């Protein structure tokens, strides 16, 4: 059924991506269908979306950050007369249950791009007299919320998307974002803050893109003050963070002002682990590195469309793997129905079981190996890209006079030695991040991170890092200045990590580095962002006319 989805007018690129991620998280797999209402600009807050049920719609809306409301649309039109006609022709059996005398209701009048006076609002409500409302009015806590929304070209230079023609919508509210979260979690009330702490709204959006749910394990390799993990923990995830700066993760600013206290402040469960580690040389124990080609093949054919539940996917992998001694009950979480699905998909069940019975002598260790390196459900982070914070990795060298060879720490100074670090380039950092994610994310798990892009004359290049194990499913730009933006990339793991894949990834990374990242490196990004603009001669005199030429529509700058 088509619902009217109205967004808050901000972070335009993030809006549909968020709804799509949440729909998938709630178990609705085929990609969503969207439509724009008549005469609406793509950046308009009014969208129509096809959702399977009202429950799905409500759950998406309530969990989201950017959905102002999802409505069952009773009617729309370019004028009040058209609206009346449209509402009257909407099926009675859809309307009447919400108009009975046992219900309480409220009608809210809203407009996009202009404020409507109280008097006008009242008049609009009265004009709806043709709807047979039988319930009682309750303004504080109604059972049913009706909304009358309108958008028009008000002719004001308010920077909003251009409107061709007036449009009025009337609908019943199904659900909307809980924006009260934002003042609760806003950074200015956060006890422990760093220079690059992630804004609460964006952190929640990242958690939604990563489909964070209770019981999932979420990792942030650049945890800093924990601002991203706080959002993930709010949605029930188990969290884990690492940082190369030990002051950030261990000390903070005292016993009641550190990463732990940021979680305690909101009564959230503390991270499962915080540690000091280098993303360039992560200290995670190795899992099984080699897997047979046929396994990979089965995996890619089976998971191409990625519609199977996670437990089934894991089971398929275990079943078709050449590793013996895996029984049904070695995969907790996989239900009997999953086995039935699996049987249908592979047709291999009896064969596999037979093989398992015969090869039962090997210990359960093999299973552990297979599962060991797929442990995280999501990796969410904001890598240091050298604008406000530069990355560091281990492997620096003490500059001792006259010594050129790599520095060796004298034996008597090893305890308490503070290792020096070396600069960590953006390209390397992103490559390591993708490699780590490919190794340690579960199949279908998500990697969500920010990537910087330069803007020149409002043109943005959209070449993003790639990896054979990952599919890019959303890229949402947030403009930070006229010269650069950051793009939130959402990637989903669709293929297993093998030696072969790792090699291919390195080659791909080299190509990418040659072509695109070089421009962002060598202080280029930093200077592009911070160097002063040099206006060309003669331009200053024109500044007044420039102002008038300024486009009325501000687009994604909101």
């Amino acid at each position: 059924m088509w619902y009217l989805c109205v967004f808050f007018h901000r972070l335009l690129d993030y809006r549909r991506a968020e709804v799509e991620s949440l729909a998938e998280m709630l178990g609705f797999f085929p990609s969503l269908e969207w439509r724009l209402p008549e005469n609406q600009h793509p950046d308009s807050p009014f969208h129509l979306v096809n959702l399977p049920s009202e429950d799905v719609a409500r759950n998406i809306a309530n969990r989201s950050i950017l959905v102002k409301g999802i409505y069952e649309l009773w009617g729309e039109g370019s004028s009040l007369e058209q609206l009346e006609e449209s509402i009257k022709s909407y099926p009675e059996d859809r309307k009447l249950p919400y108009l009975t005398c046992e219900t309480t209701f409220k009608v809210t009048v809203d407009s996009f791009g202009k404020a409507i006076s109280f008097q006008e609002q009242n008049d609009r409500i009265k004009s709806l007299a043709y709807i047979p409302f039988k319930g009682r009015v309750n303004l504080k806590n109604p059972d049913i919320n009706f909304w009358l929304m309108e958008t028009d070209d008000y002719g004001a230079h308010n920077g909003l998307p251009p409107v061709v023609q007036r449009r009025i919508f009337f609908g019943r509210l199904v659900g909307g974002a809980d924006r009260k979260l934002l003042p609760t979690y806003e950074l200015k009330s956060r006890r422990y803050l760093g220079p690059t702490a992630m804004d609460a709204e964006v952190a929640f959006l990242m958690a939604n893109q990563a489909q964070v749910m209770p019981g999932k394990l979420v990792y942030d390799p650049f945890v800093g003050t924990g601002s991203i993990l706080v959002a993930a923990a709010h949605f029930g995830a188990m969290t884990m963070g690492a940082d190369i700066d030990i002051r950030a993760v261990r000390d903070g600013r005292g016993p009641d002002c550190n990463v732990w206290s940021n979680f305690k402040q909101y009564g959230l469960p503390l991270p499962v682990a915080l540690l000091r580690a280098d993303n360039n040389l992560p200290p995670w124990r190795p899992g099984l590195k080699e897997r047979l080609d046929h396994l990979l093949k089965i995996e890619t054919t089976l998971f191409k469309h990625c519609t199977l539940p996670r437990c089934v996917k894991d089971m398929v992998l275990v079943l078709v793997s050449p590793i013996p001694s895996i029984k049904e009950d070695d995969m907790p979480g996989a239900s009997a129905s999953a086995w039935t699905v699996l049987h249908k998909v592979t047709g291999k069940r009896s064969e596999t079981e037979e093989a398992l019975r015969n090869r039962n002598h090997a210990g359960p260790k093999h299973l552990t190996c297979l599962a060991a390196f797929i442990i995280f459900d999501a990796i969410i982070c904001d890598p240091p890209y050298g604008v406000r914070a530069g990355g560091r990795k281990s492997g620096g060298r003490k500059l001792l006079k006259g010594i050129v060879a790599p520095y060796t720490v004298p034996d008597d100074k090893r305890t308490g030695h503070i290792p020096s670090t070396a600069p960590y380039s953006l390209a390397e950092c992103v490559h390591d991040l993708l490699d780590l994610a490919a190794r340690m994310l579960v199949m279908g798990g998500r990697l969500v991170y920010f990537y910087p892009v330069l803007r020149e004359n409002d043109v943005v290049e959209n070449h993003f890092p790639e990896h054979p194990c990952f599919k890019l499913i959303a890229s949402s730009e947030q403009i930070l200045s006229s010269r650069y933006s950051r793009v939130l990339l959402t990637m989903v793991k669709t293929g297993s990590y093998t030696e072969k894949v790792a090699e291919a990834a390195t080659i791909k990374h080299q190509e990418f580095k040659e072509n695109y990242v070089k421009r962002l490196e060598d202080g280029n990004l930093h200077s592009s962002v911070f160097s002063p603009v040099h206006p060309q001669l003669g331009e200053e005199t024109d500044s007044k006319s420039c102002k008038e030429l300024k486009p009325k529509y501000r687009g994604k700058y909101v």
Partner: protein
Amino acid sequence: MRLFTHNMLSSNIKGVANGFPLRIEVDQVVEKQVDFNPDFLKNMFPKLEWKALVDAARTMGYTELPEEADSSMLESEEFLRKLHHALLELHLEEGALVCPETGRKFPVNKGIPNMLLHEDEV
């Protein structure tokens, strides 16, 4: 540092072939109560190196875990409680993790393991 973390960590010093499991040197262990979450335990169980966990728990003074475990034991709440305690409630607050091959100590202060390598270990 919880034993869950210990179970995932390994020494990644250059040239070390088998850096797992790290030996634990205990200076101070604290116990912190954590909400019991059986689903999380069941999810994580197949990913654990059981022997490493049992040994680590013993070093920390907890000897209730069985030598061998398989997933059928996840049905028993008693077992899950023990696993929960060992995995999530025992914290190594002060001490060190020792690389099994080289003997290099990775210090653990205020519950945070410092896994950063020295210049000549990269």
